């Protein structure tokens, strides 16, 4: 190649470079494309196909059952309960998480000397190995011997069966999920707050808006609203995916009161090996997540356009 003089390069040179680029690209993307097809595209297509069959692992054959799995799922009281609980759970966790994270981000953002300290402390739960920390929480909220139970006892308040009382189980898990997710939103908010130009506050101060609440209402909140939306949507997706907490703490009990869609799907698919039915439940879960993702995507597009 290097022997060819500059003037003969011309068209043939360009074509050779083009061919070389194609060839290089082929080797570069080959492994990734192969793996994406094998680990994501084909499995996803298979889930779609399975959901219309009655396949069970170990069976010799399978039958096409049309939409039977989906109609069964819609009529299954346990599935309904799991879906309802998942929404209920998100309803408890998402607003609380966002409000707490915003509140603490505002407070920490106005600190100067102690800011680093608070940042570190509030960031810490992001490192949490959740299956293990769930175990820790199970002792902290233990209804007889845990420190919280002792505290209630000390103040002569009635004992609470955090994980055994049907009315509390889902709420207790939510309490831990809030702990888990608040730091993530906190990080997003803190990043969002640092992008607000200082001049805006100075200008507002000239207009007489120098009190905390006025500043928040007129500058911080309008500037932070898009961030808030992103934080809320991401947290919603994460809460829809709640799994470890349920596995470790309640196994969906008592009486299915903390059953959620992903754990129900896990039981049907991987414990009872009802692949067809499990696939249909998987798709219900995917629909829930995708609906939120779609909203997020549209908002991102709109913000980019603006």
């Amino acid at each position, binding site marked *: 190649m290097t022997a060819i003089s500059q003037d003969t390069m011309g068209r043939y040179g360009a074509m050779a470079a083009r061919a070389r680029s194609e060839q290089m690209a082929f080797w570069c993307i080959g492994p990734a494309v192969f793996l994406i097809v094998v680990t994501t*595209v084909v499995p996803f297509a298979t889930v779609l196909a399975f959901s219309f069959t009655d396949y069970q692992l170990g069976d010799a054959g399978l039958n096409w059952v049309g939409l039977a799995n989906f109609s069964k799922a819609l009529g299954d009281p346990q599935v309904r309960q799991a879906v309802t609980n998942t929404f209920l759970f998100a309803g408890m966790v998402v607003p609380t998480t966002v409000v707490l994270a915003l509140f603490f981000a505002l407070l920490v953002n106005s600190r100067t000397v102690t800011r680093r300290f608070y940042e570190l402390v509030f960031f810490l739960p992001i490192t949490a190995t959740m*299956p293990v920390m769930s175990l820790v929480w199970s002792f902290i909220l233990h209804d007889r011997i845990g420190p919280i139970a002792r505290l209630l006892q000390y103040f002569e308040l009635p004992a609470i069966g955090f994980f055994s009382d049907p009315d509390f189980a889902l709420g207790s898990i939510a309490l831990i999920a809030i702990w888990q997710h608040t730091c993530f939103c906190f990080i997003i908010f803190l990043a969002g707050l640092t992008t607000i130009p200082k001049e805006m506050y100075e200008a507002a101060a000239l207009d007489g808006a120098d009190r905390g609440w006025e500043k928040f209402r007129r500058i911080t909140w309008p500037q932070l609203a898009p961030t808030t939306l992103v934080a809320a949507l991401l947290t919603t997706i994460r809460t829809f995916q709640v799994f470890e907490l349920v596995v470790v703490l309640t196994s969906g009990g008592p009486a299915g009161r903390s059953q959620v869609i992903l754990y129900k799907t896990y039981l049907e698919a991987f414990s009872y090996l009802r692949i067809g039915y499990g696939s249909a439940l998987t798709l219900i879960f995917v629909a829930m997540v995708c609906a939120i993702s779609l909203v997020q995507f549209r908002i991102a597009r709109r913000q980019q356009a603006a």
Partner: protein
Amino acid sequence: MNRGSLKPVIFEHAVLSIGVVYSIFPFFWMIITSLRSSGDAFNSDSLLWPTKWDVVYNYTQALLTTPLPRFLANGVFVCGVILLLQIATALPCAYAIAKLSFRGRTFLTATVICCLAIPFQAVALPLFVGLAQLDLLNSYFALISPFAVSVFAILMLAQYLRGYPDEIIEAARLDGLSEKGILWRLILPASKPAIAAFAIFSVAAHWNDLYWPLIVVTEPDLAPPTLGVLFFRSEESGDQTGPLMAAATIVTLPLVVFFLAAQRRFVQGITMTGVK
């Protein structure tokens, strides 16, 4: 905000400290309980501060009488191999998307973005069936293979490499550097910051994962720490909280230390998951 007066500041610190307690209490309780004798943990006279220490017993118990070292080794091995594979597959692909022209580039990019929207739980079932048919459940292969490629890594690295100057690549080509050489000697070193940020995200995600190990692993010999600790719990009863919390501390600590050492990178790596 406080215009020099002390009262609001103290009030703010008071409110913040409630958040501080909520944030660190589980870690605090875990570590304290791992240091004291099991009975002492639930003695109401010494709820927050131990009266009877039992550090050596708890930690030796956790490390010597249970397969915890094995779990940790499994975790390190699985996370390490996953990370290496992800970088090895994603970096060339990202380079091609960002810097090479080839037929189907737009289609590939679109496919990658679509795959990003599919949660892992959606493909777990066929992967499980496939591995079961091939008799590969309960193997490192089963733990690692589904994560050998990360579409997230591809998009992130491609985004990063778009900022890399074309002139340098052209100049290297004119100097006779092969395409392989460009990838290995120019692109890899240049991508280090992005790779570091991704590495943190990847290791944290797989070190903390319970879902997939729970599905494909039933043999304790192969269990990563998250699954192993659960085995450990079901064997032991409540009077073994000391060793159990020691095990929990050992499993949780690597990420905490990692976090304290490289906080900015860590936060960057985690916030990137905002994309996913």
